[in-house]
């Protein structure tokens, strides 16, 4: 039986809450003298990274190792992949090595879906970011961070994010983080507003379960969490916005804007941050900014995902929902 995590849209509310609750329990491991569990002993997790992303890779690596899995890091750079080997042949190689799970980061949208449905491998596929499509574990760790801060008493075990108002600001068009967050947050009952210049909102966004605004100041006063997306400077050259300064003025988060947020509201950033672009140093370094906490939560979430996908004889979440429909 196949078991994969390809898209946040594949998760039901109960799946998502189970992952968050499991992560909440696993997070407590950090307080113990031995930060390791024997659960995935003898299982092999391959980190297959076609894009450089040291942060995501080490997060998955730490998660797998804390569950006692064997970890193989396969980076496209300097490997046969850079010599023209196809995704298929790479996958067949990993299959021959006995990979129980493949954590894949790929520049092509849909590559993890293809890997999971092509019959090239039997193991679980975990999407660690594909092109401008999705990054479901990032959305899960974001939701985990929100739940911890916004659930009132305690970490919110068993709860979703019903009624919470989340604002996601920036380059939605090119953001897999935004896509996964919109799906997951909607599933968890949150009210999501995307804020971006119209050039960075995808054509066809009207089918998404969220609101769209071009005016950050109009929404910032009534939000429980603001997520600032990284804006790549090269977008400027493609005429998505005129200048960095204009972008920062209209869509950046500075101290003044942060001061207009509700007192309990948090500032989130998936990293790496462009200080001075979408977020000022003052905000990035404030105690309302959860960027560092998100990184720590990422390990717990990825442990939870690996455990729930690999910890039994079949997946506890999202089983087979990404099979091709034909």
């Amino acid at each position, binding site marked *: 039986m196949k078991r994969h995590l390809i898209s946040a849209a594949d998760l039901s509310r109960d799946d998502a809450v189970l992952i968050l609750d499991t992560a909440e329990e696993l997070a407590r491991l950090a307080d113990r003298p031995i930060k390791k569990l024997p659960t995935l002993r003898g299982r092999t997790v391959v980190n297959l990274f076609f894009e450089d992303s040291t942060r995501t890779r080490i997060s998955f690596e730490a998660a797998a190792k804390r569950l006692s899995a064997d970890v193989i890091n396969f980076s496209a750079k300097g490997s046969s992949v850079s010599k023209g080997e196809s995704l298929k042949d790479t996958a067949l190689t990993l299959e021959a090595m006995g990979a129980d799970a493949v954590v894949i980061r790929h520049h*092509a949208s849909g*590559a993890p879906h293809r890997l999971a449905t092509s019959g090239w491998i039997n193991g679980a596929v975990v999407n660690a970011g594909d*092109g401008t499509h999705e990054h479901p574990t990032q959305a899960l760790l974001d939701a985990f961070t929100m739940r911890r801060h916004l659930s009132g008493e305690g970490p919110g075990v068993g709860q979703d994010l019903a009624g919470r108002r989340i604002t996601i600001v920036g380059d939605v068009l090119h953001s897999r983080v935004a896509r996964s967050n919109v799906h997951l947050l909607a599933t968890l009952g949150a009210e999501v507003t995307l804020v971006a210049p119209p050039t960075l909102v995808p054509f*066809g966004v009207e089918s998404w379960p969220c609101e769209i605004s071009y005016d950050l100041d109009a929404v910032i006063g009534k939000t429980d969490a603001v997520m600032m997306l990284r804006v790549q400077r090269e977008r400027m050259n493609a005429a998505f916005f005129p200048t960095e300064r204009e972008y920062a003025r209209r869509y950046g988060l500075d101290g003044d804007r942060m001061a207009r947020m509700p007192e309990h509201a948090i500032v989130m950033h998936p990293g790496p941050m462009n200080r001075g672009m979408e977020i000022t140093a003052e905000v990035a370094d404030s105690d309302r900014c959860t960027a560092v906490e998100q990184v720590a939560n990422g390990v717990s979430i990825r442990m939870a995902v690996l455990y729930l996908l690999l910890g039994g004889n079949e997946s506890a979440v999202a089983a087979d929902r990404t099979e091709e*429909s034909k």
Partner: protein
Amino acid sequence: MTMSDTDKTLLRGAKVLGGEPRDVLIEGERIAAVGSGLDAAGATVIDVTGQILLPGLVDLHTHLREPGREDSETVLTGTKAAAAGGFTAVHAMANTFPVADTAGVVEQVWRLGKESGYCDVQPVGAVTVGLEGKKLAELGAMHDSAAGVRVFSDDGKCVDDAVIMRRALEYVKAFGGVIAQHAQEPRLTEGAQMNEGVVSAELGLGGWPAVAEESIIARDVLLAAHVGSRVHICHLSTAGSVELIRWAKSKGWNVTAEVTPHHLLLTDELVRSYNPVYKVNPPLRTEADVMALREALADGTIDCVATDHAPHPHEDKDCEWGAAAMGMVGLETALSVVQHTMVDTGLLDWAGVADRMSVRPSAIGRLAGHGRPVAPGEPANLTLLDSAYRGVVNPAGFASRSRNTPYEGRELPGRVTYTFLRGRATVVDGKLA
């Protein structure tokens, strides 16, 4: 039945253009008689009662890949596929390696077509050298060559420079040529992977907006009107393109257009599978576009069906979406898809199919001997179709060297039973002769 050595063949009971049953006698390369109760003496008799008889189909838009990409198709395998699909003539697109931008290359393709014997091959010449859009190819030389090129296209690439397009439109007037434009504004489609819309937004695939097609069509019909030449628009894919063609025709301008079978049936929803078999240029659009294209083909706004048969080797589709080649094979399923989308839906009768798949493409390509009436004295280029047949598409049985069909496993109606090229059967009882 068995074929004898005689050069007389009597088709018994064929529904000519879907009409009342008739006998059709083929003698040598030509149709000798059409009537009821024709004398079978000395003829091989084939009982085709209830089958539809059409003039041999003509494809304005075929990629035969030879020279250069013989791993995906050759002139021989491509013309076999064409015959199997009921075609008696195909226009071979110019994006080969080397590009068909000289008299030498088009003559090579033309000669290979002659040798194949399954289907007439009319080479299309490139508009610009190397399809690069910068410098006109020697259009006159290609026209004057043995290949007698009359259709010119940079297909796969758009002639996006307005001045080059204008000059090409003007230049081919000297010998009655036509420019077949692949309408794709290049800057609007940088990194494009699929139709820009609701699905692309969700899938995170680069969008190919309808306006990138429509803006070029708008410009080119205006240019053609301005210089008094004719322009043909390849593979229309959007409802907006249909409106522009309708408008240009209402002005009396010399504009023609084609639609592919896949754009008459498939939508971008299929891309959700990320299966590159659905990756094609122009991309699969929306249901509304599909309906507009069917309607336009029915009312004649769109002149013809052209397959854009685009073979690719397995490895170019057995990969992630972004790395996959664009294109679908189509020769062997075209008539079935047209029956399914146009005839079985009541939008077009068989006479209409003959018009859109044989008469009009022949006229656009000014192709002699094809698209003719089923009448005594005419060349016996004929196709017989068992329209009652229902079958599941199995690419393993294709004559094409490539298998990249979007219809694998799909049930489609209709089966080509016989194809005659100038009186000689290229397909007999559904199998290549």
